[in-house]
């Protein structure tokens, strides 16, 4: 049901753009006003969210330690899993952000029968790289595709674009050359969606907010692929529009094709949705206190800015309360 809501929402977005451009002739709205508004919401939204997080204190050093602490000199520590200082913490974070380290650890369990064990069952652990693979494939493809799109926003085209294009089209299949990332991202998104349906636990926990970005991204990727390989739009005119947006001299050339506007509108929807959604994990991952703090709180004091005095039952009160018993037991008293 949640998936249907999400799919419905994306279909509505597609239809809105299609009808808006082809029937109502609102090219200016979908080509200029919406993108500007969307990017504004995106930037303001992200800055607001990150600043809000960043201004909330981190009262305690609650590192999740995943390896041997640095203690005695002859014990080999695991600085990446239990970072003893800021530098190692940065390295741990880099692994987390760039390689999805924690997700790589993923395992799955199943129960096998075992006559000898009480209960007759045994837990079997197996490595489970699929989620990691799907996630990393999606994110890196998204990055490459984003970089490739700089050819629409720079003139002359910025230096890394041809490089990325050559690498991405390495196999030189088809004309225009097929970019691997387009296919891989489709596969990755397809898998991430598939597991939301196929895995009973994941299906159970999935909200509309989990399906919506997947459908939206699929819509963006599919419309992009259609534009490039099948229902070709006029790239020169499209670039005229995007360069106009970037240079704050918006122009709306005729005859780009409504598919372009659908693509652009879905992207606009994504960036508007971003700051209000779980997609903010992109910024959040950098701020997560269990990962971005070192495990050195016994060596270096962590300060809680809102630390406050509490009602402690003091030694004096305690001694007064148990004076007779302390004395009878022959334990030294402070006030004899």
């Amino acid at each position, binding site marked *: 049901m949640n998936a249907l809501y999400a799919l419905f929402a994306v279909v509505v977005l597609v239809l809105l753009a299609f009808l808006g451009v082809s029937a109502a002739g609102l090219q200016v709205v979908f080509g200029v006003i919406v993108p500007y508004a969307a990017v504004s919401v995106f930037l303001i939204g992200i800055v607001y969210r990150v600043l809000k997080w960043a201004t909330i204190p981190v009262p305690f050093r609650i590192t999740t330690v995943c390896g041997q602490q640095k203690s005695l000199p002859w014990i080999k520590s695991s600085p990446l899993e239990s970072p003893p200082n800021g530098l190692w913490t940065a390295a741990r974070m880099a692994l987390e952000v760039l390689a999805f380290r924690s997700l790589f650890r993923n395992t799955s369990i199943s129960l096998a029968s075992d006559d000898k064990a009480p209960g007759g069952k045994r837990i079997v*652990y197996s490595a489970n790289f699929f989620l990691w693979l799907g996630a990393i494939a999606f994110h890196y493809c998204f990055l490459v595709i984003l970089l490739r799109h700089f050819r629409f926003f720079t003139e002359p085209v910025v230096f890394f674009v041809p490089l990325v294009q050559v690498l991405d089209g390495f196999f030189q299949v088809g004309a225009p050359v097929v970019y691997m990332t387009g296919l891989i991202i489709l596969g990755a998104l397809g898998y991430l969606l598939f597991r939301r349906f196929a895995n009973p636990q994941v299906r159970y926990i999935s909200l509309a907010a989990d399906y919506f970005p997947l459908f939206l991204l699929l819509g963006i990727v599919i419309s992009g692929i259609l534009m490039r390989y099948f229902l070709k739009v006029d790239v020169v005119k499209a670039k005229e529009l995007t360069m106009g947006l970037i240079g704050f001299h918006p122009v709306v050339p005729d005859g780009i094709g409504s598919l372009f506007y659908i693509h652009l509108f879905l992207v606009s929807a994504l960036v508007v949705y971003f700051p209000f959604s779980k997609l903010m994990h992109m910024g959040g991952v950098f701020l997560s206190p269990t990962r971005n703090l070192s495990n050195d709180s016994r060596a270096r004091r*962590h300060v809680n800015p809102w630390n406050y005095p509490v009602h402690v039952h003091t030694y004096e009160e305690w001694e007064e309360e148990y004076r007779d018993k302390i004395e009878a037991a022959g334990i030294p008293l402070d006030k004899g």
Partner: protein
Amino acid sequence: MSSEELDIKPEDLLKFDYDPPKQDWMDPSVAFRKGTYCYSCAPKHLEYLEMANPREWQPHDKDWKLPENWKEIVFEGMRDRLSKYRSFQLFMDICVRCGACADKCHFFIGSGDPKNMPVLRAELLRSVYRNDFTAVGKILGKLAGGRELTEDVIKEWFYYFYQCTECRRCSVFCPYGIDTAEITMMARELLNLLGLNITWALEPAANCQRTGNHLGIQPHTFKDSLEFFQDEIEDITGVKVNLPISKKGADVLFVTPSGDYFADPGTFTLMGYMMLFHEIGLDYTWSPYASEGGNFGLFNSHELMKQLNAKIYAEAKRLGVKWILGGECGHMWRVVNQYMDTMNGPADFLEEPVSPITGTKFENAKSTKMVHIAEFTADLMKHNKVKLDPSRNDSLRVTFHDSCNPSRAMGLLEEPRHVLKSVCNHFYEMPENTIREQTYCCAGGAGLGTDENMEMRMRGGFPRGNALRHVQEKHDVNRLACVCAIDRATLIPLADYWAPGVVVTGVHELVGNALVMKGEKERELDMRGDPLNEMEGDEDV
């Protein structure tokens, strides 16, 4: 220590599958079935601790007698905590529900209840957050994953947040480091604002506030207990160990969980400490005022944690010691390693810890000035400062249970292993998915280790028990060593249930067995008073 046996057979307990029910998780209805929840705390303890809404009630009652403005209290409590803890705000915002944590929770693995998946446990709170604290949720409500806060939601919170042992295993696997323990701690604070707490978590805290330890042991009884163990040691070894109590100017204040001087098998571990300190001539002292290392405040609120923890520094200052040594305890070390210095420091009246025996500087503890006994003892053994006869433990085939907090809140993995391998010849690891940072909880942590909760404990204990059974089968393991007082109580019924024949032991109990003391008589008995090297149970080697 005897515990109630669970009258459900293991094969019946495991009659469930992991497929979620038809019922939508947003439906908050919870059946309080006996054996799966803990009882409420008596009002007198709430009154003593000046906590909210003291009254007689039980979770299975229909009317929980909430304060009239309970909703307002919860929202205000959430608002306050969202602005004070970045962790809480962030963990409410960034979960993508990828499900990597789902099968990492021992309670899920042993019950199949989907609300024991860490992601869903958090969603119970997160859904209310979305509904009332986010713009999208306020507009779209249920469509945005929002859920109205009702009394049933509160009951569900109570059930599931007192069905989380704050072990942090899920947090190891989360790509954003979302820590369910943190969310559970917030939820329990909110529940406490309404007077919803459990006796096993709160009564010990009240005792500790008053007497200095969870068990409510008063100073004269404290001394009696230690003297009793002094006599026991003399019976076993012929050596009368020293017993310094409230000794001003000692080098070291020693603090250990009260379970160690209250009940077996912790007491055997305590005897191990006393023998070791005597043998190396450590100038140390016990304190009846700070007679608790454990901190059940942690299981209720940050404030209560701080209140109880404050006594340790206060006593160290009063006695004028140089630094503090801490015994084998799990959540105690979460507090010491991650909270103590921040909450109650700086401990500038103490010196940076140096072992008077080896001269080793414990640089990793130079600010907090508190050293873990496994660090201290491993250092002694590495420098050959104690004479050991590991063959005295030859009848024991030992495995090691990493306790949640020393592993995932501290990284104390190799120190206890070094000690164990120094004092016994037969040591075997459980499977790698079940030890070190991936270790499983005993399912009785965070105040849940009570008999009325036995079914849930055995369910949650299944992954640990299963791994234990594996090494019992494969290597004839007959001893499960650990460095946690809660473990020493809760792993006993767990082992009896899932791996019968395995006996639970503290690490320093085995040190006590192997320690060759100056002037000792021919050792015939182990720490338990049983003949040395006689097999336990029916196991044969």
